[in-house]
């Protein structure tokens, strides 16, 4: 584990905002267990819990908290200067941070999604949801890490993307789905374990290519922006 990853992980788990990661996955599992134990037909609760809550809310919100936490929080409190005053190529800072963010997000989201998928349908669906969410975690985190470097308000902008673009416009303007990580994750999960519970709106090639493009493109953007990182001009 590189020193940058170690500091990033310590910083992530050492801050109180890490506690924000717990309620949503717990709610996901709780709803799935309740629905199953009450004998509700998975066709009724499956799409709402797995997609409506799991992929549309839990995954992007956890990725937002973690993705902006690994770099944005350090920029906010100024501790990023300690890492930047080292003779490290900037990719050696971004990649470990992205790896920690994507890893933590993937674990936090995949486990409850796996449980919910198993309860709704099968182990195969559980694994498919976990795998697709892990891929989605990488794309979301690349986006949110890059946002930390292009704006002073990455959380706000990230929420706008998740809630307005993916959540609201996705329901009314079908074209926006082509630029929606949530849709790629649904498509990939459906490809791994075809089921009635998941309704894919974009094709597998589009989902695959766009996920890769977003992950790579925003990572490259983050590396480039970090090379030109400026400390806010406090003229004292």
């Amino acid at each position, binding site marked *: 584990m590189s020193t940058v990853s170690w500091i990033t992980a310590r*910083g992530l788990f*050492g801050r109180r905002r890490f506690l924000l990661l717990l309620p949503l996955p717990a709610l996901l599992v709780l709803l799935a267990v309740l629905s199953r134990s009450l004998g509700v037909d998975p066709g009724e609760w499956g799409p709402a819990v797995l997609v409506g809550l799991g992929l549309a809310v839990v995954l992007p919100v956890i990725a937002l908290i973690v993705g902006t936490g690994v770099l944005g929080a350090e920029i906010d409190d100024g501790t990023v200067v*300690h890492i930047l005053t080292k003779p490290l190529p*900037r990719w050696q800072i971004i990649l470990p941070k992205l790896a920690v963010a994507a890893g933590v997000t993937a674990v936090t989201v995949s486990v409850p999604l796996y449980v919910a998928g198993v309860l709704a349908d099968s182990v195969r669906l559980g694994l498919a949801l976990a795998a697709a969410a892990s891929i989605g975690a990488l794309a979301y985190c690349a986006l949110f890490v890059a946002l930390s470097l292009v704006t002073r308000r990455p959380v706000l902008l990230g929420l706008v993307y998740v809630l307005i673009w993916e959540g609201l416009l996705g329901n009314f303007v079908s074209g926006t789905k082509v630029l929606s990580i949530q849709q790629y994750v649904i498509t990939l999960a459906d490809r791994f374990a075809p089921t009635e519970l998941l309704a894919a709106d974009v094709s597998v090639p589009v989902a695959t290519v766009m996920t890769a493009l977003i992950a790579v493109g925003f990572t490259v953007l983050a590396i480039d922006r970090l090379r030109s*990182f*400026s*400390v806010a*001009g406090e003229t*004292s």
Partner: protein
Amino acid sequence: MTAISADPMPATTRTTSTLNLAGVSRWYGNVVAVNDVSMELGPGVTGLLGPNGAGKTTLLHMMAGFLAPSRGTVTLDGAPTWRNPEVYRRLGLVSEREAVHTFLSAYEFVLASAKMHRLPDPVEATRRAIALVELESAQSRRIGTYSKGMRQRARVAAALVHDPQVLLLDEPFNGMDPRQRLHMMQLLHRLGAAGRTILFSSHILEEVEQVSGTVQVMVAGRLAASGDFRTIRRLMTNRPHVFAIRSTDDRALAVALMAEPSVSGVELDRTGLTVRAGDYGAFTRVLPKVALAGGIRVRQLVPEDESLESVFSYLVEA
């Protein structure tokens, strides 16, 4: 209290570095924060002095590669500091903002710096850096439990762990108690004497005066003066220099000095003479002659306004 015993530098890295600023300006929209500053910083301790808002921090950020100059160049041994992480092999920065990983202990914090510098023996480098700032007894505690001065020392240790040739410190004495302040001043002196290029900013004149004879004075984004602060004072001949003199016959000496063109005023009181001289050099040459001619013995001659405070206020008023 542990004495400063550690040698700040391993023998293998005893080289010097020069930080060069050529016509550097930085503006934010219509606001000019730094205006056409040129300077060359070599080995030794230099104080960057100026009131709040003078542009000191902006200048330090450009030196440290954290801000692009709008115009001009900032180079360390010929290499630009902007977009060039390699300069951090030779450069250390202690920024003004009290930003530190509070969830780490000082040992972990400094060791992490040593590892990110890829030092051959990070543990030994960490031990040495922590000893330099006298933080051994608290090194295992979380930095979150430290006082402001201790945090500052932890940050200095992290900035020194790779034994940089150039160390930039933004307001390094903020929050330190007098003993810590003295210790830090001694440390900067030692590093400067050992051939390191040390630049620290301050708006407190006594700090700069005690640590550094060489100052770069910034006023409203411009470099108002540069060099030894006593020399700067002497060059400002349009301002009177004030001397306190005690002699065997103050009254007679006062009368004799009044006739000298270099003297612009004399005050006589019970403690002695206070003389205002327009020309520093001419006055110090003429005083012995006048005293000798009058058979007066000068017992004490003290330049009263050579503190950095007076130099600074003259420059700001100018």
